[in-house]
């Protein structure tokens, strides 16, 4: 079979693993988007910019305060989440009663402003960020860098933790109830607006967390988010808007499909996800894991 495909089993396993690693980023980012959309009904186009900010904060605290990568994993998401709270309180909050489109336009505007400011200040070629876990394991079929292994594990823990919190805990059930019927939930004495703000902050923090994880792999540059966010939106659409498990599974799955495309027909690797998106939209407009409302 492998000979038929013109590829050795070693190469195939290697590519599958790499697909999984890239899928980890798609999963974490689309998860944040799905949480924000599912619970707030806001299409957070600024997600990519917040991912980029996460990476930049990590670089910044390392460069100017000597905070290492592991510290940045906590500091950067918190810092960017605080920025998210301000954004939500001052701007996004005012759009909840309007159509999705307004939220999308507002957050898109912020992307342009944030990226422009960062580009003006730091230039477009990016900043260096050293790998905190150099070296790797020889798995026989490929060389697995330690850091990439860590990324997959960290991403799985964060994704499943988020899913568990929202679907299985009491706090999660409050959240879901609050989005179904905020007036009723408020009548039980729960501070719904604050919960919504914190949810947005959490989603933004997830983006920043992914950004910190990305810093040692990709360039830390102002456009790193917009290059990724379009793919992540496609992932969310394929998985089903607002479906948490859907976005996780689709994120990892599409990473693998993209990885395989890079072997069989690399020229198409930047388009394959959109082809799948078009097919899914034709057959199941609500997405693979979504339910039509």
């Amino acid at each position, binding site marked *: 079979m492998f000979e038929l495909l013109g590829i050795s089993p070693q190469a195939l396993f290697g590519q599958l693993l790499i697909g999984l690693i890239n899928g980890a980023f798609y999963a974490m980012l689309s998860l944040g988007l799905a949480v924000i959309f599912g619970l707030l009904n806001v299409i957070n186009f600024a997600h990519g910019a917040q991912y980029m900010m996460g990476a930049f904060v990590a670089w910044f605290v390392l460069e100017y305060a000597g905070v290492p990568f592991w510290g940045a994993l906590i500091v950067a998401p918190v810092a960017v989440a605080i920025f998210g709270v301000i954004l939500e309180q001052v701007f996004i909050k005012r759009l909840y009663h309007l159509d999705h489109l307004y939220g999308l336009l507002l957050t898109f505007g912020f992307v342009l402003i944030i990226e422009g400011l960062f580009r003006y200040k730091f230039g477009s070629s990016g900043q260096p960020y050293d790998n905190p876990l150099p070296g790797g394991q020889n798995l026989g079929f490929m*060389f697995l860098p330690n850091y990439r292994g860590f990324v997959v594990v960290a991403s799985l823990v964060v994704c499943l933790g988020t899913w568990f919190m929202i679907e299985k805990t009491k706090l999660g059930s409050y959240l879901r109830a609050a989005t179904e019927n905020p007036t009723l939930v408020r009548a039980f004495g729960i501070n719904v607006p604050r919960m919504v703000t914190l949810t947005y902050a959490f989603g933004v923090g997830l983006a920043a967390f992914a950004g910190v994880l990305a810093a040692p792999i*990709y360039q830390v540059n102002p456009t790193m988010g917009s290059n990724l966010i379009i793919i992540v939106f496609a992932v969310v659409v394929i998985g089903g808007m607002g479906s948490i498990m859907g976005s996780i599974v689709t994120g990892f799955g599409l990473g693998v499909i993209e990885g395989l495309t890079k072997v069989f027909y690399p020229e198409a690797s930047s388009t394959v996800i959109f082809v799948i998106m078009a097919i899914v939209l034709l057959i199941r407009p609500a997405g693979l894991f979504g339910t039509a409302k």
Partner: protein
Amino acid sequence: MQRMKQLMSAAAMVALLAAPAAAQVSDDVVKLGVMNDQSGLYADITGPGSVVAARMAVEDFGGKVLGKPIEVVFADHQNKPDIGVNVARQWIDTQQVDAMVDVPTSSVALAVQEVTRQKNRVFLMSGPASSDLTGKACSETGIHWTYDTYALANGTGKALVKQGGDTWFFLTSDYAFGHALERDTAKFVTDGGGKVLGVVRHPLNTADFSSFLLQAQASKAKVIGLANAGGDTINSIKQAAEFGVVAGGQRLAGLLVFINDVHALGLKTAQGLVVTSAFYWDLNDDTRAFAKRFMEKHKGMVPSMIQAGVYGEVMHYLKAVQAAGTDEAKAVAKKMKELPINDFMTKNGSIRQDGRVIRNMYLLQVKKPEESKAKYDYYKVLATIPGNEAFRPMAEGGCPLVKG
């Protein structure tokens, strides 16, 4: 007699029309249009810095030529040929732009070369790399100033083959530039007795190269040639280090690496890379003086060879306009080819019939972190490649302007 009179008046008319054209500036302004990537992956190596360099040249020239003011305008082509062509047409048709400047991204430059050929405008290329611009796509008014894919292959490619790198695998950016760089390098590899084991072509502006690097690793080639640029090169090198490519005994050949890329990578990751460049700020007093002035005007960012080239080509263009007494494109291009080039980065340079500027190139190596004494102290010079060896012989390019 009647006929004689007719002839005389016709001759007078011709003389009247021709005379002013010989010493005239169209629209009473000499306008330069700097078009490049203002915000994307090539923005640091071209972008606003090229505009700064063009303005510095205009300022140094005195702001006026043939008594008329010189103006610099700029636009973002977003690395898309259709946008580039639209901007070029608009500039020429409605804004009286006399010369296009910089225009990185070979696919865009090839398209703009056609527009300037049709509309008779000078095209001063510093950013684009494809050697086809002075080969089969050459133009009478197109001047390829700073470097090209042949010179890069000739420097880095040949040096690595000589050091025993006789099997290659290419990671190629999938558009005109990458294809040209791969082709020109592959020629040096096979001419030197080496072999190309494989090629993978990735889309422009790719974030993740791990999959491609894995294929390159599996090929067991001694050298992995990076026929890409800007952010793509940075990500390739960064991730190659992560995947233990160099530790595994393979060598990376960054075929087009700019000093800004080295800065973004950090010396720890970039050390040891062999790079071909037309310019390095720390070569001599002249280059240091230019870099100092440039950095004062451009947020402390070091000039890339492209930005340095923009200064040189604008200066030379203005000198040629002055000497030709007109801004008519063919006359200026002809004069540019007659005048010798002498500035901080080019000594006794010349422009060939096909538009190729001939100057020395430098084979540089990125320093180890402990060798670097100051910010941007990144390279040591391995060799100077004389201009007559650095570029493709004119007869081999296939430029239709070159006959016999």
